[in-house]
Each structure stands twice: as C-alpha cells, then as structure tokens.
C-alpha cells in the first residue's frame, strides 16, 4: 500500500538523553535508534522510569537529546530555534496528556479552537473545523461547558479533539487512559482508533494499558532507556 512506501514520520538515530539529578547522572535514553512509519497506531510500553515518557518528549519536540539526532516529519529538530520548534509543534504535533491538561478558563469549544488560533486559521474555517471536531468526539452539546463541568471521559474527548483539530501529522499520547475507569478508557481508545483510521494520522502512545496494546499496529518495548523489543506488522 502507498503508506508503506512513505518515509518514516519519526527517525531517531543513536539518541541518548541524560539528566542531572544532583550529583547523579541519570541516563533516561541510551543510544536509541528507531523509525516509526506514518499512519500507524504505535504503542511504547515500558515500566515506570524505563524512559518511554522521555522518548515521547523527544518525538514531541519538547525536549532535546543529549546526543544523537531526532527527525520528525522529515525535519531535523536540532536545526530549529525555540520559536521555530514551537511553530513546528503548532502545525504538526498534537498532544494528549494523562491529566487531560485543558485550559481551565476556556470552554470545550475554546479549548478545541485554540490550536487553530495558533496556526492563524481564519475565523469561519476555524469555527467549522472546531464544531466538526466536537461533533466527531460526541461533545457538540457540551461545547460551551468549562472543563470543570465535564467528566473525566468528556475532558479526554475534548483533549483528543484539541490534538486532532489542526490535522497534525503526528499525535502523541502519554498514558491517555490512566486516569479513567476501564469502561471510559475503552470508549476513549475506540474513539482514538476510529479517528486514527479516518485521518491516517500517526498515533504514538506511551502506556501500561493492555487494552491499548491490543489495538496497536506496532509495539516498542523499552527498558532502561533501550529498545528491548519491536513487534508489529512488518514494514
């Protein structure tokens, strides 16, 4: 299929990331090399402290490697300055967080609309896209509610809508179901699976959730900052 011929959306080459914790040097990622093909529903698994969040941060261009090269959407991230990286994220990367992280003073509608403001989309188009996105996550009726008036599942739906509304090439989700009960988690997973299938957006998850793993096209298992296993449909 065509997607298989396209270049990888993420390419990490000999990437290391070390942190200074007092006098101690913590190696979160150690000489990691991997490629993630586009249009997949990929999952990064690993125990707490295995380095999977660090990996997601590097892929999401909100952290920089101590060594090695990160290339996202064919862009060498190291070549961009701070503002350019911010603009790059605004255009290409959507985030979904474990704690939902909606802006509390903005309504569901305004939270979803915010990323479109960042890319400077004109008003009418912005409104159409925002409403369509809320419709797609089943929250059209709750559009004017503030986050504190929404349930956990509804909040995460808003977060998904917010991540996807700008039609990014890449969506990163760090433990998106961890704060949800399993039924809600399941509905969130199926929602994400559906929108991923519709949009062919590349989804990358970090999770412990076995439910998520069962949906994955591809699984990267991480331990102690190194790739332990790569399972998935062969490319």
């Amino acid at each position, binding site marked *: 299929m065509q997607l298989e011929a396209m270049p990888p959306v993420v390419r990490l080459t000999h990437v290391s990331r070390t942190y200074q914790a007092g006098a101690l040097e913590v190696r979160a990622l150690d000489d990691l090399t991997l490629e993630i093909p586009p249009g997949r529903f990929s999952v990064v698994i690993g125990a707490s402290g295995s380095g999977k969040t660090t990996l997601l941060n590097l892929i999401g261009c909100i952290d920089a490697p101590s060594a090695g090269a990160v290339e996202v959407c064919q862009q060498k991230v190291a070549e961009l300055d701070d503002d350019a990286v911010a603009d790059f*994220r605004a255009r290409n*990367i959507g985030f979904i967080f474990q*704690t939902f*992280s909606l*802006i*509390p*003073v*903005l309504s569901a509608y*305004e939270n979803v609309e915010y*990323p479109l403001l960042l890319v400077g989309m004109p008003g009418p188009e912005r409104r159409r896209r925002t409403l369509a996105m809320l419709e797609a996550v089943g929250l059209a009726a709750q559009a004017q509610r503030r986050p504190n008036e929404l349930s956990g599942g509804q909040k995460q739906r808003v977060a998904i809508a917010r991540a996807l509304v700008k039609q990014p090439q890449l969506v990163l989700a760090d433990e998106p179901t961890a704060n949800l009960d399993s039924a809600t988690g399941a509905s969130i997973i199926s929602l994400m699976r559906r929108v991923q299938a519709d949009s062919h957006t590349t989804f990358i998850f970090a999770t412990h959730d076995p439910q998520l793993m069962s949906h994955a096209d591809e699984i990267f298992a991480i331990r102690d900052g190194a790739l332990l296993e790569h399972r998935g449909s062969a490319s």
Partner: protein
Amino acid sequence: MIGVLVKIAWRNIVRNRRRSLMTASAVAAGALAMLLFLGYTTYIFLGMETGNVQHLGHLRVFRAGYFLYGAGNPSAYGIDGYREVMRSIGADPVLEPMIRVLTPTQSLMGIAANYRGDNAASRTFFGEGIIPSDRDRMLRWDQYHTGIYHPLDPPMADADESRGLIGTGLARILNLCAPLALPECPPAPAAAPPPGEHPGKVNADIAELAGRDVPQGGRAPGGAQIDLLAATVGGAPNVVSLNVIGAQPQGAKELDDAYVLMHLALAQQLVYGREEHKITAIVLQLKDSRYLSAARARLNALFRERHLDLEVRDFAELVPFYGQVIRLFSSIFLFIALVMGMIVLFAVVNTMTMNVMERINEIGTSRAMGVRRSRIRAQFLIEGTLIGLIGTAVGAALAIAIAALVNRSGITWIPPGNATAIPLHLDVLGRPLRALGICAGLVLVATAAALLPANRAARLSVVDALRHI
C-alpha cells in the same frame, strides 16, 4: 491571537476574584491617594496662581536692575516716561488681545505714623500705589473658576486720591482699632518711657512755642487719618496724609504689620514730590495664563526694538514663596507616588507570581501545543495590565466621587500665604493630563510588576512544566 490571550487573562482574574480584588484594591488605593492629592495640589496651585495674578498680575515691567537691586530703594528705580511705554504696550497688535489689565503701580517705603490722640505711634511701612478701578478689575480675574474674589473693602475710588487701606497689623500698631472698628484688635498698652530717660518737668516756654502754630495733641482723635513720611527721590523729607478707610488682613505677618495700599497719585506725590512722577512697574494681567511666555517674549522684543532699559518679570519670580510651595507639594507628591508605586509593585508581583505558580502545568500544555515563549510572557503581562486598569479605574472613580462629596460639604481652610478662609475644593480633573499621567503610570507599574513573573513563566522548560501537576 491577542484576543484569546486577553480572554484567558481576564477569565483568570475573574476566577481568582478574591486575590485579584486585593491586588486591584492596592492599585485603586494608589490611584485614589495620588488623584486626591493631585486634586488638592491643583486646587492649591491654581488658587495661589489666581491670588498672585489677582494682586500682582502675570507680568511686571521694571526698570532694568530693579528686580535684583531695587527692593531696598524702590523710588530710585522709577520708569521714565511710563505713559508712553504703556501706550506702546497697549497698542501692540500682539499684546493687545492678550492683555486684560494694563496698569501702573508704585512701590514705596517710608514711615507710617499716627500722631493723633495720646498714643503716638509710628512704623516703617511698605506701600503700593495703584489705580483703584484697575486693581478691582484685576481682583476679578478667575480663569480657573476658583470663585476667589476678595474686593477692596471698603472700595477705594479713582477720584479720591486721599483714601487707602492698610494691613490689620499696621492698623493695630497705629492705634486704629477703635476708629476702624476692627474686631479682635485690643488697644496697645500704654508705652513705658525708655529706660534711662526720665520725663522732666514741662518746660512752659517750649510748650507755649510748640502750641503757638499747631494745635497740640493732634487734630481730633478718632479720625482714621495717618501720616506717611518718606524721603523723595531727591532726598527731601515728604509727608502726605492718608484717610484709612479700612484694614485688610495680609497673609504674612510681616506684611500685615507694614502694608499700605494707596492711590497711585498719592504714592507718586510722596515718592517724587516736585520731580517728574514715575512708577515702579507696569503691571500686565493677561486674559489667560497660557499667554504668559508669549507675552513676555513680545515685551522683551518690544523693549529691545525701542532700546528701552526695561526688564520683565513674572509673578512666580516676584513671589519665591509660590515656587517653594509648588516644590514642597511636588516633593510630597513624589513621595506619595513612590510609596504607592512600591505597594502596587509588590502586590502585583506577589499576585502574578502566585498565578504563574498555579498554572505551571497549563503553561507546559500551551507550550507543547506550540505557543511561543513570548506569548506566554504576553499572557501574564496582559493579566498584570488588566489588574492595573481595573484598580486604576476604580480608584479614579472613587477619587472623583470623594472629591465631589468634599466639594459639596463646604469645608473651609486657610491656604498657605492666605489671610482668610476659603472653601476647600479638590480639583481632581483640573489638570487632566496629570490625572491621566497618574493613571497611566499606575497601569505601567502594574504591567512592569508582572514582567518578572511573566518572564519566569516564559522561561519554564516544557518538560518540567508538564511534569508539574
């Protein structure tokens, strides 16, 4: 984009309404204090300016050197041919439309004496010779609608050169309390003979000679007529009689004890005697104080053109006290502004720091979504500005309301340099540019105070911020 930043800032202010209220209150208190003080100083400045312009005019033309050297001997600095000079000033096309009153005046010094009755008394006086109708017109100047108008009481007449007014202190010293029916004016105690001088027996021979041509013990006691003695420009002793028609309190005691206001003709008679009658100064009262520098420049040009050895001084130069009061109040204002500015600064820094600390995760989320650092900074600066704006608006509204209350309450007071009580008036909007400056300054301080926390927010690492719950 800026719209959503303002929206977020505003909603956060509303969300933390108690904290925002406290901070805005500090700003409001600052605005209130400064605006009320501004209103007070404006009232004082305009009141003092009005008083000075009413009595001295805006500008005075002297013979060169008078201002620096003439005070000790005003009569030696008379303006030659002053009528001609006044005519050319009055006819000048530039000056003519600016001038409200153009009038001559003579300053003089001498001895005022009341030799009538038993208690003969005399004292050095400082006098002013004026044209009564011109003076009255000057006293009606009120560009700033202060309502200040203290007419000459009782009025002096252009037609009667012998009439004049004196300071209440001088009236007291000259034993005129009773003739002028002055309130709170006790008669002087009988003077004790100077030590070492014992009044001898009356020498009948001398007493007879003294009483032969002039009635002894003065003319009928009870009349408020005094003698003014001065040396003429030529050095000759000269005396005139002044019918004191009333006493008016003067602000400073030393002036109150020495002041004589008389008709210009009488002053000239006393100072110049048989010589050419001159004047000390040509007084210009302008329709509007804003003409002052233009009028001054034009006068100087006129005098240069005509080779007249004259100098122009404005009322602020003539009354150093005016400048001193302005400097005093300005420094008090600066002090208040400094204290209030500090309070606002600390209040806003504190509040904004708390706001930043509470929203670290939100900051991380925004940054991850692609919001630039500069917009995070703008976000919090806008919040500080909004708090400043709200506080300033509330403070300004309160200041205007309080001023209106005070102005309606009819409280009176005696301003510095004044002799009589006048209604207290807070003129908050009397100098609108300054009021605006105070408000803008406070908003600026609030914004500047937000800069530190805002920079801190902008500098946060995205990863650390996201990890912060």
